[in-house]
């Protein structure tokens, strides 16, 4: 795809977008048969209010990370790849004085500017209580998705999405969200009447809904469960093993660096890919999905690295 085609597509979608806005009909209702060759999923987790880069004297990450640097990389990737999904797997809040002073407002504003498509609710999103979260939520121009926290008896009722469907060209991408058990991890006074439901059971219900009822081609689980536990506690690996339609898990909580993404075989014998990027937004995760393309045309940007041939699993 060359830049010219890119621009033409952009003009067309913008026009449709304006029409949709004017008529009140959702944009996707017009449909878009454009075949997507590639979808780029960018992801972060446990960014913990790390708005500025780490200071120069930090023992581990001197001058690394920071929102402005992350945004620059995201912009560069958007200039290269047409279809991008930008996701966060929770614990956006808590970790620097920005959160103590502003309660999460700058984090959500800056993520909105970066064009985040969705985030899930991490345990630290409860740190200023349900009221604290509800107060700053209007600054997020993107949805928070959680399928296994029931907020219906709280101030967050109706403000958190159960799932979301995203359209990229002819692709329908379904996203559901999973949060960790709150009892013993978050003060009861903070999470109030939030009810936690078993993540595996919820995941199976959500993927069935998204795949069979909504015909989503790609299903992503946005998870703050944690990658894996020695104790056998429910984790991304367990969700991957016990589901059948979930393609990708964008994870968080355990601050695990998965490089490359982990692969787990699901209950239907297929691969699930799990990504997690460590801690504090020092890294940006990236998964490029290629559809129906000739392998010789792939990985054009990755020409310094190994090019893999198709292989059957």
């Amino acid at each position, binding site marked *: 795809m*060359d*830049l010219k085609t890119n621009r033409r597509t952009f003009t067309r979608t913008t026009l449709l977008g304006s029409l949709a806005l004017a008529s009140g009909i959702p944009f996707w209702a017009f449909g878009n048969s454009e075949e997507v060759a590639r*979808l780029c999923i960018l992801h972060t987790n446990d960014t913990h*209010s790390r708005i*500025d*880069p780490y200071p120069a*004297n*930090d*023992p581990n990450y001197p*001058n690394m990370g*920071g*929102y*402005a*640097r*992350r*945004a*620059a*990389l995201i912009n560069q990737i958007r200039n*290269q790849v047409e279809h991008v999904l930008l996701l966060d797997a929770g614990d956006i809040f808590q*970790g*620097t*004085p920005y959160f103590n*002073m502003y309660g999460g407002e700058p984090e959500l*504003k*800056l993520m909105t500017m970066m064009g985040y498509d969705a985030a899930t609710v991490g345990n630290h999103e409860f*740190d200023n209580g349900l009221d604290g979260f509800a107060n700053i939520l209007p600054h997020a121009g993107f949805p928070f998705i959680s399928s296994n926290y029931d907020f219906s008896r709280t101030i967050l009722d109706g403000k958190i999405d159960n799932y979301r469907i995203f359209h990229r060209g002819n692709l329908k991408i379904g996203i559901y969200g999973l949060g960790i058990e709150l009892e*013993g991890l*978050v*003060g009861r006074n903070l999470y109030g009447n939030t009810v936690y439901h078993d993540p595996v059971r919820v995941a199976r219900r959500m993927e069935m809904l998204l*795949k*069979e009822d909504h015909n989503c*081609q790609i299903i992503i689980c946005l998870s703050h469960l944690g990658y894996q536990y020695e104790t056998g506690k429910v984790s991304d690996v367990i969700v991957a093993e016990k589901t059948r*339609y979930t393609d990708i898990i964008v994870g968080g909580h355990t601050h695990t*660096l*998965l*490089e*490359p993404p982990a692969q787990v075989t699901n209950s239907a014998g*297929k691969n699930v*890919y799990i*990504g997690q*990027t460590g801690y504090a937004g020092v890294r*940006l*995760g*990236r*998964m490029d*999905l*290629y*559809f129906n393309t000739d392998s010789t045309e*792939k*990985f054009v*940007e*990755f*020409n310094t*690295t*190994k090019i*893999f041939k*198709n*292989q*059957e*699993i």
Partner: protein
Amino acid sequence: MIKLRIVSHVISFCILLVLSCSGPMQQDFELEGTVVLLDSINVPEVDSNQKAVIQQYRKNLEAEMNRLLVYSERVMERGTPEGLLNNFVADLVFEIGKELYAPEDDKPIDFCLLNYGGLRVPLPRGEITYERVFELLPFENEMVVITLSGEKTLELFHYLANATRGMPVSGIKLAIQDNHALEILIQGKEFDINRTYKVLTSDYLAGGGDSMNFFLQPINYELLGMRVRDAIIKHMQRVHAKGEKINSELDGRITVLD
């Protein structure tokens, strides 16, 4: 298509796999995954729009946060079973807690227990600012004194013996073998299950945080009226006022025997 220079620098691994086709609307794809380190080599420029917004928020913070608090003799990191940072924080919180505590029964606090997960960043050598201490302990947790029965205190030591991460403690000496508390000394004296103990901790842990369920339904719960972070700031201010540097050492307060 323009070459994406930054990514080509940093791709260390790629995976590429084909999903087999079956079931409803299954979409074949090949996946290439990577993680990009956000340093000045991979991303030389920062986004100016973000920078402008951050600057507005930053201005108010800076005046407060960039102030020097104290100098540190060495890098302090958390560790398991003990760590320089664990010992530093637990010791000073215990000291300041004892100073604040004025009990009705005249019985002093026996020991201090905090949690590894609560120490969020290491302390660098050299200059420590207020900001660094906020990063070390961002939580608004209060210091509390919990009175526990002998049985519950033993549960606490079972918890420590089974902990996979080094919990910051002060006032105790513990030897662990095969996840079993082999030797327990509290203030230099052997643990006695027939008496009560007063434990200094945070309200987060006292509420069962980090699964410290032995703190739930205690004999007594007394708030000291000071945040854990403020105790650290207070300690650092005192050290700096004396013209000294903060320091810490490992002393074998928790040991794991083969």
